[in-house]
C-alpha cells in the first residue's frame, strides 16, 4: 500500500471510548430519565446500540434506541450522481419532551447533523437535542458542535476518517486514510 492508514483507535480503545461516551451522556442528562438515543445511518446506529447496552449494564436502565436515515433531508441530493441507497428510519415513539442524543461516527462539515435536526423536528418537539460523536475531525461548515466527543483528531481535508465496526465490517478500528485509498 502506498500510504499506510494511520490507526486512531484500535478495538480496545474504541470500546473504552464508547464507555466514556456512555458515562458522559448519562451525566449530561443527569440520569437516564427521558433519554432517547438516535443513531444516524449507517454506523451511528450500531454505535448508539452499543452505548445503550453499556448504559443498561451500568445503570440498569433500558434506553430507547432509534435509527435515522437523513438521505432524504440532504442538501446535495441533486449533485451526488448515483442515488445513495436510502436506509431505514425507525423512531416508533414520541420524541415530545424527550432528551434526544444524536449519535454518529464522524463529525466533519456538520451537514449531516443539520439534516438530522431537520428530520427530528418532523417527528416531534424534544425538550433537548444533544450530539455525541465518536470522532470529531474538525472542518465544520455550519455552526454545529458536539456535546460528547469520543476522540478529537485534526485531519487534513484531503484525508478521510474510516470507522470500521464489527457489526458491518467484521472489525473494530478507526483509521485515517488518504481519500483515494480503500473504498
Amino acid at each position: 500500500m502506498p500510504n499506510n492508514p494511520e490507526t486512531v483507535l484500535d478495538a480496545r480503545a474504541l470500546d473504552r471510548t464508547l464507555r466514556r461516551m456512555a458515562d458522559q451522556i448519562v451525566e449530561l442528562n443527569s440520569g437516564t430519565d427521558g433519554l432517547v438515543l438516535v443513531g444516524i445511518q449507517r454506523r451511528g446506529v450500531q454505535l448508539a446500540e452499543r452505548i445503550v447496552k453499556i448504559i443498561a449494564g451500568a445503570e440498569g436502565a433500558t434506553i430507547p434506541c432509534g435509527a435515522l436515515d437523513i438521505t432524504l433531508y440532504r442538501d446535495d441530493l441533486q449533485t451526488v450522481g448515483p442515488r445513495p441507497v436510502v436506509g431505514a428510519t425507525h423512531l416508533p415513539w414520541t420524541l415530545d419532551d424527550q432528551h434526544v442524543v444524536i449519535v454518529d461516527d464522524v463529525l466533519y462539515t456538520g451537514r449531516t447533523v443539520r439534516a438530522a435536526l431537520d428530520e427530528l423536528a418532523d417527528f416531534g418537539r424534544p425538550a433537548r437535542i444533544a450530539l455525541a460523536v465518536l470522532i470529531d475531525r474538525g472542518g465544520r461548515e455550519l455552526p454545529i458542535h458536539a456535546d460528547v466527543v469520543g476522540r478529537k483528531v485534526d485531519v487534513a481535508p484531503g484525508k478521510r476518517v474510516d470507522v470500521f465496526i464489527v457489526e458491518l465490517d467484521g472489525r473494530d478500528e478507526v483509521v485515517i486514510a488518504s481519500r483515494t485509498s480503500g473504498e
Partner: protein
Amino acid sequence: MAGSLGKDLLGLADLSAAQIRLVLDTAVPFREISERQIKKVPTLRGMTIVNLFFEPSTRTRISFEFAEKRLSADTVNVAVAGSSVSKGETLVDTARNLEAMKIDMVVVRHPASGAARFLAERIESNVINAGDGTHEHPTQGLLDLLTLRDKFGDLAGKRICICGDVLHSRVARSNIWGLTKLGAEVGVCGPRSLLPNAIGEMGVTVFDRIEDAIQWADALNILRLQLERMQGGYIPSLREYNRVFGVTRARLEAAPRDLLILHPGPMNRGVEIDSDVADGPHSVILNQVTNGVAVRMAVLYLLAGGRPELAEAAKRGPA
C-alpha cells in the same frame, strides 16, 4: 447502470433486473414515511411535477399525487375534460406549453400505446409512464413486484398467474416483463379471445382453465375485466365469465397451497373475483395500494437525481 434509472420510466421492458431491484429496495424505506405523523420529507422541494392524464384515473393519479406531495414537490393535475386537450391540442404541444412554464417532470397517462415514449423523446423533463394504451403501466408492475416480494422474499422460481383480460392489459405486460426479469415463472389464464395471439412468445405458460392455473400457481394477479374497452363480443356475458373464469373461494379451496391474491383495481366484484376472495385472508390487494405510493416515491426520487440543471440550482441555493 444499476445506480440509476436514467431520464424516464417508460416501461419495465427497458429496465434491467438490477434497476428493478433498485426501485424495490428504495421503496421499502419510503413506506415508513407514510406511517409518520408528518408524512412529508423535503427531498423534492422546489420541483414541479405535472400529472397529465388523458384517460380517467382515480387510484393511480391519487397515488402519484400522494407520492409527489410526500416528497414536497409542487404538483399540477391536468385532466382531459376542461383542458385545451379537449380543444384539439396535440400531446406534444400540451407538454411543450407546460415545459415553457418551467416544470421538471411529467406523469402521463394516455390511451395510445407508445405515447409516453413519444413524449419522452420530445421534451426535456423526466417522463413517467402512468399507463399508455395497452402497452405498459410500469409503476403498477413495480408495486405488484414489491407486494409479491414482501410475501415471498426472492421471486426466483415462484409461479405467478395473470388471470383475465390480458389482451387489453398494460398491467399484464408490465407484470410479465418484471416478473420474468426477477426470475419468476409467469402464467396467463383467460378466454382465448382475451389473450394476445403472440402471448406464447413472451415466455409464459398459457392456461385455458382457471382450475389448472390455480393448481399451478403460488399467486394470482387477477386483472379487471375492462368493460370500457370491450367494444364487441369478447365474452358472451359477465355472468358466464364469472362462471368459467371467476376466482371463487370454492376454486381456491381445491388448490394444493394458499394462493396470494392480487388485483390492480378497481375490482368488478362477482365478475373476475368474488368478494370472499377479495376480502379473504390471502388477499394483498390493499397492500398493493399502500406499496403503490412507496414505489412511486422511489421512482420520483431516483429520476430526480443527477440532472445538471438541478445540480446548478442546488449550488446556487442555500445549503
